[in-house]
Structure formats: structure tokens, C-alpha cells
């Protein structure tokens, strides 16, 4: 492992230098089963570059104390770095105000926050929530829990055979009882990029707010919450080269202000007596207890790292990987790509004829190729395509065309073993 580290210099990246970027990721230098690691499970979790690791170490070795409380210097440093991370995330998604950026433990936590804070206050018996077939379980189950509790109804937007939302059907679902739309920006199972800007505009024309699950979008696309005009946008740090246990909920201030708190505890209050508690202002109202300070600061560093490379450069390289892999796999007999939307992020779900995805996964692992097999926490999608599970390769900006070749060779080996 390198002890001396030269971080990526944004000005040297006029052409995308993937080998230089890979050198920043210690884990990508490892080998498994005697083969170099080909890490293609980035939609599940991405790897962490040295500058982010270094930032975590620096925080723990010289900046750590609890935040928002004490008057000593160390606590002031920790508080100021935590809030600086919030501003980095604010800029990353172009949120109008920093108080609209709430640190959560991840996307699931962020969606649950909206369910408890907004849903339980404003959604009543007979009201309707629109979700889509593509949703991850994390944007289904909280709303089912709410529906069970309140008697609200869930309506589901169907998809076509390519894995694209049927927008006409979406628009037909609206009525005077529609209270919220929950939609993922990019499908984790299929890679489909949904036309959320158009969907948000339509929902707003009916006065309905929209929650976007952006977990799979922020690592691949430049996200601008003002341009999208979404009401809530949720994402996770660990899919963004940051640590686990940290995520973000962006919410429009006017909505966040009128929501009830999700978790009660320290920091989310202004004053507490046994007669009456006054809640803190946003975002603190939604950040009860000591937050994951180190993780938030690490996520701030991760965002700096990605922006230094440039989200446009990342998207362009990933598109090259996606197109190359799609072209190769389309030509393979007995391999079927599931999810062929026109507008896709760098995710390929596929099945190999006559071979169960778990056997594909085990045999690819033998070749050093790490990918995900299973239902991808999107069982309604699997049901729609009548498969119990798929194999899924998901590419990040640090993957290479050579790694796509390793995947293709691995799939050929699977087919050979099973002939």
C-alpha cells in the first residue's frame, strides 16, 4: 500500500486517466482467489480513495470531540468541520440553503424520516401515495408501514419490457387523494434513469410533493435539486466513495419546517421541561443525538474528490464502460440483459441461460470478479421480468475496459462449466 499519496490533480485530467485514479484506491490493488480484484458491485457500495481515508484518520487523530456543545477549541473544530461538510454536500446537489441538508444514516434512514416526519403528519385514511415498480424495498416498505397505520393506499407505476416507467400510466394515477410521489432517480436493479424532472413537474401541477431516492444517481450524474425542483432527495455516502453510516436528506425548507421530528433526543431541541419541549430549527430538528461526525466529514472529502475529477468526466467514462459491456454481452449467446432502457446508468443486470445467478456469482468470484447476485432488494422488478434473481455488474469511474473483458471471459467460463 502506498504511504506517500499524491491526490488526483483536477487540472491534469483533461483526458480521463483511469490508472491514475485507480492508484488512489488501496482496495483495488488487492487480489482474491489468486486473481486481481475486479470490483463490479458499485451499486451496492463503492470503494474509498486514499484522500477520504486520510481525512477520516486526520479527524480521529486531531479533530474529534462531540459537536454543538462545549466551548473548548477541539469541540469548536469538530463542529466547524461537520458544518463545513454540510456545505460541501449542499453545493454538491446545489441545494439553495445549507439548513435544507440533513445528515442521516443513509438513504433508508432518509426515506423513513420523510415517512415519519411528513407522511405520518399529512397522509390520512384514503389518501394515496404513488410509487413505481422499480423502487428499492427501502422506498416501498416504509410507505406500506404508513399505509397499514393510516389506511392510506399505495398506487404503483408500471414499467415496460425495457424497464422504463410508463409515464402515461403515472399521470393517470393522479387524483384529488394523491398526497405524495416516491420515485427513484436511477434504478439499482436495472440502471434505468427515470425522467424525474418531468414527473416532478407533473406532480407539482397537481400540488403533490415528490420524494426522490437518489442513492444510485448521485454517484453517476450531476444532480441539481433546484433544477429538478424535487421536494425531497435522499442518498447514501457509501455509494459515493464515502463511509457507511452517513447519508443525506435534502428537503425544501418550507416542508421541513412544517414536518414533525422523526427521532427525539439531544440536539434536536431548544429547551426541555417535563411540561413542554421546544424543538430546534432545521436541520438540527432532524439530527437527534450525536451524529456520525467522522462519517459526515469523510463524505465531505469524498464529494471533494469526485468534484475534482468532475461528474461530467465520471459520467462519460462510465457510459463508455456501459456501452462496451452492453455491446459485448448483447453478442453473447445464452446471455440476456434485463433492463434495456434508452437512458441508463452503468448497471447491467443479466441472466445466463440455464445457470442460476448464485452459481454465476460463485464461479465469477473464482476469477476475481465481484458482482451482485440476487433480487437486489427490488423483488417487484424481478417479478415483472419473471426471474427469481439476476446477476448484476455495476461500474464505477475507476473500472476499466480490461475489467469488462474479465467479466465477459468469466461469463464464458460459467457457460463452459455448465454445458
Amino acid at each position, binding site marked *: 500500500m502506498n504511504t506517500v499519496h499524491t491526490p488526483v490533480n483536477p487540472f491534469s485530467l483533461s483526458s480521463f486517466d483511469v490508472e491514475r485514479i485507480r492508484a488512489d484506491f488501496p482496495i483495488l490493488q488487492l487480489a482474491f*482467489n*489468486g486473481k486481481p480484484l475486479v470490483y463490479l458491485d458499485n451499486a451496492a457500495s463503492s470503494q474509498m480513495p486514499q484522500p477520504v481515508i486520510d481525512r477520516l484518520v486526520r479527524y480521529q487523530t486531531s479533530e474529534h470531540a462531540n459537536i454543538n456543545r462545549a466551548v473548548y477549541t477541539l469541540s469548536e473544530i469538530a463542529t466547524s468541520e461537520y458544518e463545513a461538510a454540510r456545505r460541501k454536500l449542499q453545493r454538491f446537489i446545489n441545494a439553495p440553503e445549507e439548513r435544507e441538508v440533513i445528515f442521516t444514516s443513509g438513504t433508508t434512514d432518509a426515506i423513513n424520516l420523510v415517512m415519519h416526519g411528513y407522511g405520518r403528519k399529512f397522509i390520512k385514511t384514503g389518501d394515496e401515495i404513488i410509487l413505481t415498480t422499480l423502487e428499492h424495498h427501502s422506498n416501498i416498505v416504509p410507505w406500506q408501514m404508513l399505509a397499514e397505520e393510516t389506511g392510506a393506499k399505495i398506487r404503483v407505476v408500471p414499467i415496460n419490457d425495457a424497464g422504463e416507467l410508463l409515464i402515461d400510466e403515472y399521470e393517470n394515477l393522479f387524483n384529488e387523494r394523491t398526497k405524495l410521489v416516491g420515485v427513484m432517480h436511477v434504478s439499482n436493479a436495472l440502471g434505468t434513469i427515470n425522467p424525474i424532472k418531468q414527473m416532478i413537474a407533473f406532480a407539482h401541477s397537481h400540488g403533490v410533493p415528490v420524494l426522490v431516492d437518489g442513492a444510485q444517481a448521485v454517484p453517476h450524474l450531476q444532480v441539481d435539486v433546484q433544477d429538478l425542483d424535487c421536494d425531497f432527495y435522499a442518498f447514501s455516502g457509501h455509494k459515493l466513495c464515502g463511509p457507511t453510516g452517513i447519508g443525506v436528506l435534502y428537503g425544501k425548507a418550507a416542508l421541513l419546517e412544517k414536518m414533525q421530528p422523526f427521532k427525539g433526543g439531544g440536539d434536536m431541541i431548544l429547551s426541555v421541561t417535563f411540561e413542554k419541549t421546544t424543538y430546534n430549527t432545521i436541520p438540527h430538528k432532524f439530527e437527534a443525538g450525536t451524529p456520525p461526525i467522522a462519517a459526515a466529514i469523510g463524505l465531505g472529502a469524498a464529494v471533494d474528490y469526485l468534484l475534482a475529477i468532475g461528474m461530467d468526466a465520471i459520467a462519460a467514462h462510465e457510459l463508455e464502460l456501459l456501452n462496451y459491456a452492453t455491446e459485448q454481452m448483447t453478442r453473447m449467446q445464452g446471455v440476456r440483459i434485463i433492463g434495456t432502457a434508452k437512458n441508463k446508468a452503468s448497471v447491467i443486470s443479466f441472466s445466463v441461460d440455464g*445457470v*442460476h*445467478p*448464485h*452459481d454465476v456469482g*460463485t*464461479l465469477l*468470484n*473464482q476469477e476475481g470478479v465481484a458482482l451482485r*447476485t*440476487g*433480487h437486489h432488494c427490488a*423483488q417487484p422488478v*424481478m417479478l415483472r421480468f419473471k426471474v*427469481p*434473481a439476476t446477476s448484476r455488474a455495476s461500474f464505477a469511474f475507476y473500472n476499466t475496459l480490461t475489467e469488462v473483458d474479465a467479466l465477459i471471459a468469466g461469463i464464458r467460463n460459467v457457460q463452459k*462449466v*455448465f454445458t
Partner: protein
Amino acid sequence: MANYKALYQEVILDHNKKPRNYGTLAHASHHAVGHNPLCGDHISVALNFDRDCIDDIAFQGESCAICKASASMMTVAIKGKSRADAEILIQEFLAMTTGKLDLESPNHIGRLAVFAGVCDLPTRVKCAILPWHTLQAAFNSVATTSIRS
């Protein structure tokens, strides 16, 4: 490393391709369905006793090669055995696939030893033991079972 190779060897691939005793029994005395919630795989096992002897056994379901071959070879191994002997084999198979069976000491594993390598693949152990777990449930007249329980 050698274990992957050992796992996907001829005998397992053959049972996956041409599973023995695949199907259902018209009048099963014992029957159970087993689920692997990790992957959504499921198999059903049906059997008939003639006095104390397992006269007939069949399985079917949706599963990976490891699970299907395990089920197929299980039916071959169990057919004609007494319930007591079958239960000993279930225990030995579970012990082997979790690395707790000494294959050098006397046992009844026989050809099922091809599954020994699965103990080094923690994520795949459940695939191999699902049929056996389901067979035990059928013996105990538990209609549905899940590998996590």
C-alpha cells in the same frame, strides 16, 4: 480455491442437469416446502413410508445448481432407508457442510462428500442444506420451513 473447482465437478453438474426423483408424489404421507429467503429459492420434498422404510421420495423447485444437485443426491441416498438412518444422514450432511464432520472417521456420507467444499463458501452453505432442512421438516410434519429458522 480448490473448493470452487471441487464444488462444480461432474457429479454435481450432472445431477443439476438431470435431477433424479424430480417431480411430485400423488399420495405423499409427508411433504414440506423449504424457502431460502436470501435468494428466493424454494424446493418441495414429498415422501412415502412403507412400514418404517422410505418407499418413495421426490422433490421439485426453483434453485441453483448446488441446491438442486444436493436435493437430487439426497433423494438417491435416502430412498429405501429407515427414518432413523435418514435422520443420521441429515445430521452428518449438516455437520459436513458446516465443517464439523471429520470425513476420516466412520460416517454414511459416501458420494455426498462432493459437497464438503461448500463449508468454505459461507454464502452457499444454505443452498446445499436447504433440501435436507426441508426433508427434516417433512419428517416432523412441518408444511413450510425457512432455512433461517
